[in-house]
């Protein structure tokens, strides 16, 4: 609640008045207004909220209800910088909790305090930053750090502060991506993940080399390149032929580029000779070695299998196109589908085409897209009201980042798909609902809308036809439940994101009570391809009941991860082994968590089932938005179930009794089991609750929330039973394991130096030992030990020792 004692010096009423003027004073403008206040003050000061109520249609009850519903809004002052520790699924299985604890220790945060004593940093957990292949991930303001360990907390904070001093930022806004495609170009992806793994530094280095030697080559920003495990990826195109260089760092750039583009003038050649000489004197490095080391061929076995099984429809031209280059998009066939629709195709025929294609909603539930369009159109006829179109980009699933990538890489394709849909159903207004965590997506879509408006692709009388539609953006505020369509509508209307009973469906009574078409952004991205290539071509891909492709975010314990698009019907094992390259480090493949918090865990033995809506549902999982987290033998299935349940119970809107109280009670039981105090009766209660919640909740969140628990109970019951006996077979649950140092210890004291809680005594040249009562199981000693002498053993065995 609001704290009366908050220091509110410096609240500027005049500033808020200008915001009210710009954004509006209607009750539905509350979320944009709260965003504006939050950006200005880093929290919501009460005087600002009171001023807001006094000068708009927004009521105090609305402000309290809305501002406390969306976790994005803070009501107490925060430190200057915000540290977001990602606790998405991939980050969780890679130790995000330990990282969070490590940062808190470093900042000196104790108890419920989330801000360091100097008020410089405020730390909090966030659902998913969508950089799953770099897990665990930490974001400080705009800068993303990947592969973080608990011990690295200090280094990362220092690095961040250094960047601040140098005036560097993680922002990519200064880069102009609008360059026409040419025969010779250098492509660098600046998607969120790539930037996090250092592609901005590579970009800068390329720019320097080009400037230094005045090379006749353009540098081009592209969207996601899909192979996240190879980032930063540099593609040098010479005479239309691409050459790929993987995991490039800034130092490599010079050699790679000059290998392809020798300096044109004699003066530049001389400059290069001098540089090379100097460098060889200093480093005696051989240029060709670098070049060959980084170079990868698409014919390589690993890449061949990474791409071999894939087929790109939503992600067509992945890694080659500049996201905001509309000319290039048009050259590649963009807006042709729209033109053919506007030129003589009547909406009914268009809907028939989509129905015939068999396209199903890519948001997870798999409802027929054509039928949905038909329902909206049917409901609209006879009524002379507005029809709304919404693109659902509230990708809240931890472990899913395909929506973000699609927005960042293919904004025009989504816009084209939405334009076709708007034409089909007769919508005059389209709204992008994008989660606020995806600022890069919001910026790109905003710019893409601008560009389209300038090119008569949006607005009045599009391309000279009678068809007019305008698109706007609504920003989410950190509530997962708003991905549910009725909650999303509430959110756009400026309400708490509480789902409403269906029927009435949004297609009947949606936004502002008008018929509303809501599709996922991936669904929209498939539309132009279907129109251009015909339904037969689309149906040739995938399975008869689930035609086409699906984009998956492959992450977790595979050797290769990234954003992949495969035809429906390939097997899970195929994806894990061929595209993912199997499990990293030679460990055993245990299960795949598919569909995020609504989905389930499918064990390795069942992974030969083909991926389509029915098969996954039959196995107790769900397509969901397409997050695919691969788990190995070191992952505890009870812990995974608890992780997802903790997520959903925290994201429940609190409306239905079963979802609100039931998920909380299930989490209590799972906490108890993971803490080693579970009893046999708990499993029966857990199952009873899971079935009840599934059958008696209003919305999809409640109906699917128990899936992770039900599937793990179904396939991994033995692990639950082991926990009740007091053992965690995967060695993950902190209360059931102990860290011990074996006789292989060489007495080097490194573990002592790394232990953050002084649980290891300083005994040089002698065997070290860990005080089990002090040990927090952070794993720092185990990671640091040069002799691999730190082992995890079951706690009951430790007592025997």
């Amino acid at each position: 609640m609001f704290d009366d004692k908050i220091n509110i010096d410096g609240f500027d009423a005049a500033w808020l008045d200008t915001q009210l003027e710009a954004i509006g004073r209607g009750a539905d403008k509350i979320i944009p207004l709260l965003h504006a206040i939050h950006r200005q003050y880093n929290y919501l000061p009460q005087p600002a909220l009171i001023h807001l109520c006094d000068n708009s249609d927004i009521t105090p009850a609305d402000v309290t209800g809305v501002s406390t519903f969306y976790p994005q809004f803070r009501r107490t002052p925060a430190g200057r910088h915000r540290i977001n520790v990602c606790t998405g699924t991939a980050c969780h299985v890679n130790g995000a909790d330990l990282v969070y604890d490590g940062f808190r220790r470093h900042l000196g945060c104790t108890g419920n305090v989330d801000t360091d004593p100097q008020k410089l940093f405020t730390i909090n957990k966030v659902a998913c930053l969508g950089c799953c292949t770099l897990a665990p991930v930490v974001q400080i303001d705009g800068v993303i750090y990947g592969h973080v360990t608990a011990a690295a907390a200090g280094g990362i904070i220092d690095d961040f502060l250094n960047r601040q001093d140098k005036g560097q930022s993680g922002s990519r806004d200064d880069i102009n991506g609008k360059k026409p495609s040419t025969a010779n170009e250098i492509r660098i992806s600046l998607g969120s993940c790539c930037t996090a793994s250092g592609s901005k530094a590579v970009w800068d280095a390329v720019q320097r080399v080009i400037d230094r030697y005045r090379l006749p080559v353009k540098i081009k920003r592209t969207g996601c390149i899909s192979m996240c495990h190879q980032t930063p990826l540099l593609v040098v195109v010479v005479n239309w032929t691409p050459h790929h260089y993987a995991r490039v760092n800034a130092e490599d750039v010079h050699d790679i580029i000059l290998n392809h583009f020798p300096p044109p003038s004699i003066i530049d050649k001389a400059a290069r000779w001098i540089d090379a000489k100097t460098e060889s004197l200093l480093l005696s490095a051989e240029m060709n070695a670098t070049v060959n080391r980084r170079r990868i061929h698409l014919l390589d076995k690993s890449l061949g299998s990474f791409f071999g099984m894939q087929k790109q429809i939503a992600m067509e031209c992945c890694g080659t196109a500049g996201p905001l280059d509309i000319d290039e998009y048009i050259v590649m066939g963009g807006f042709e589908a729209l033109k053919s629709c506007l030129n003589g195709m009547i909406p009914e025929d268009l809907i028939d085409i989509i129905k015939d294609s068999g396209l199903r909603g890519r948001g997870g539930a798999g409802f027929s897209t054509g039928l949905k369009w038909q329902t909206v159109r049917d409901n609209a006829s006879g009524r002379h009201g507005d029809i709304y179109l919404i693109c659902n980009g509230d990708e809240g699933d931890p472990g899913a980042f395909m929506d973000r990538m699609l927005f960042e890489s293919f904004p025009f394709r989504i816009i084209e798909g939405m334009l076709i849909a708007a034409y089909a159903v007769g919508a005059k207004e389209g709204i992008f609902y994008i989660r606020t965590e995806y600022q890069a997506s919001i910026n790109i879509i905003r710019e893409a809308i601008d560009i389209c408006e300038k090119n008569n692709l949006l607005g009045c009388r599009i391309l000279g036809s009678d068809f007019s539609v305008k698109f706007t953006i609504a920003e989410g505020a950190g509530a997962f439940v708003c991905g549910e369509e009725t909650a999303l509508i509430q959110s756009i209307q400026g309400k708490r994101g509480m789902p409403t009973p269906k029927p009435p469906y949004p297609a009947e009574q949606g936004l502002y009570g008008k018929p509303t078409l809501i599709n996922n952004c991936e669904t929209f991205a498939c539309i132009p391809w279907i129109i251009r290539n015909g339904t037969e071509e689309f149906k040739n891909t995938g399975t008869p009941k689930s035609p086409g492709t699906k984009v998956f975010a492959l992450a977790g314990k595979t050797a290769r991860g990234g954003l992949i698009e495969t035809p429906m019907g390939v097997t899970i094992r195929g994806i894990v082994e061929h595209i993912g390259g199997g499990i990293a480090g030679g460990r055993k493949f245990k299960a795949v968590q598919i569909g995020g918090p609504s989905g389930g865990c499918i064990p390795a033995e069942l992974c030969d089932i083909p991926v389509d809506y029915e098969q996954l549902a039959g196995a107790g999982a769900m397509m969901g938005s397409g997050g695919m987290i691969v788990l190995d033998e070191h992952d505890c299935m009870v812990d995974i179930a608890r992780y997802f349940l903790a997520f959903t119970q925290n994201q429940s809107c609190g409306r239905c009794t079963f979802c609100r109280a039931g998920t909380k009670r299930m989490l209590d039981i799972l906490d108890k089991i993971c803490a080693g105090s579970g009893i046999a009766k708990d499993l029966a209660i857990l199952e009873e609750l899971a079935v009840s919640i599934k059958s008696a909740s209003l919305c999809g969140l409640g109906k699917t929330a128990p899936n992770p628990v039900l599937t793990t109970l179904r396939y991994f019951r033995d692990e639950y039973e082991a926990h009740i006996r007091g053992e965690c077979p995967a060695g993950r649950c902190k209360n059931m394991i102990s860290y011990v140092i074996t006789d292989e210890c060489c007495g080097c004291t490194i573990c002592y130096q790394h232990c953050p809680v002084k649980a290891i005594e300083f005994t040089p040249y002698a065997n070290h030992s860990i005080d089990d009562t002090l040990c927090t199981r952070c794993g720092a000693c185990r990671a640091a030990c040069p002799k691999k002498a730190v082992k995890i053993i079951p706690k009951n065995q430790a007592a025997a020792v």
Partner: protein
Amino acid sequence: MITITIDGKTVNIEEGATILDAARSAGIDIPVMCHRDKNISPVSCFVCAVRIGGNDNFVPSCATKARNGMAVDASSECVRDCRRRALELMLSEHAGDCAAPCSRICPCGLNIPEVMRNLLSGDVDAAYKTIMLNMPLPATLGYICPAPCQKGCRRTAIDTPMSIQLTHRAIAEQAINSSSVKKHVDTAPKSKNIAVIGSGPAGLSSAYFLAVSGYSCTVFESQSRAGGTLRTQFDKPALPEKVLDAEIELIEALGVKFALGQKINSIDNIYGDYDAIIIAAGLQDNNRRRFGLEYGSHGINVCRDTLMTSRPNVFACGSAARPIRMAARAAGQGRQTAISVDNYLSGKSAHKPFFMNTGHLSAAEAESLAESIPHTGKSKAPLSITGDPGRCLQCDCKKKSSCALRDYAAQYGAHHLRYATGHRRQYTRHLYNDSGLVHEPGKCTACGRCVNITMVKGITPGLSFTGRGPDVYVSAPFGADIDKAMGAALDECVKSCPTGALWIRKQVVDA
């Protein structure tokens, strides 16, 4: 008009009506907690859940439109299970007791907080009447009872428990000595005769409560004086004889006949003369099998709920059924038997009442109750008793007789501990002196009625849900007082609240 079937019954209803509307029009009872009417229907509680056409999923009948030809299941076992689980989940969040722990522990179920409130209002007669609703021998028990009630007193979390036993003794002694409390029965007499065998605490108690309900009772006692173990177990200083005599006289004054010196050796002799027979003959080791009934290892076999023996119309209580040491417990069982006999003879079926039990309170919680004692009249009772009724935390629920959650919990056999898996919510109470509103957030089921009412009525600032998920609660914006935030809708909100989360303190009239 459309036609649907509910539990096989055909119902015609206008198009656009909900399943709940249809059920109500056909007289089929569907419970509701959150739905109030067309305008106030937050759709949150799922207590009105029904199934449609054998589907596995449950839908809220208040928000599901009836469609022609629909087959609704509103009463099958699995629908009842679903409702019971919804109630049990609400109870797992519920912080607060239905009855105060002292009354729950008291074997007679004496409503102690109400007695204290009567005293605070200065009305000793009312206090005595409250006592006599549950406890027929308050002065006698006031001397000999080990007072388990005081061990349960919530006050213990802060300082010392209330002095309950001495209080009811003093009230009763004063009443016995005054002429104003001579007994007369308000209820119309019933033409039914009951025999009670034994005049110990169990027998006296059952006879008293049956007499109060209008039955004509005869108590058979083998000794020359009524009292049973009350006379034999206690010496005179512990229990003055005149106190016991006076209280038995009061029972006699109600019309209860005492057949003294008559030993009943077989019930066959009197079986035809009475509509019901209660055996309260106490522990009779030598020939306790004399009544010709089924016996177990402890005594006469009785049904746990009704206390009826193997023979119809014959009931047994007290040590005759199972050895009892505490006189108050025997008296309590006598009362329970009287209720059971009344239910049996009048054909009433009663749900076992439901009682929420929150368990131990933290000191902070008890302090919160102590700071918000709703009934704070100054005692003017001319009583020289120890203890101050103003110290009573009044932790019993003031809406216990009108609480929908409690009512349905009893109806559906819900158990409050079924999902008691973790930390419970805080039990706190806030008292708003100006309006007399009492807010107990721990009892809120987040149904949303009050929030909806202020919204529909356009009240400013109004109430709002705060937070989300399991932590959602109702609050007033910007830290305002919740009664002021409800403004003109205060009374409506309080009336609509299905639990004891919102209620109005009765203004204390100075006597």
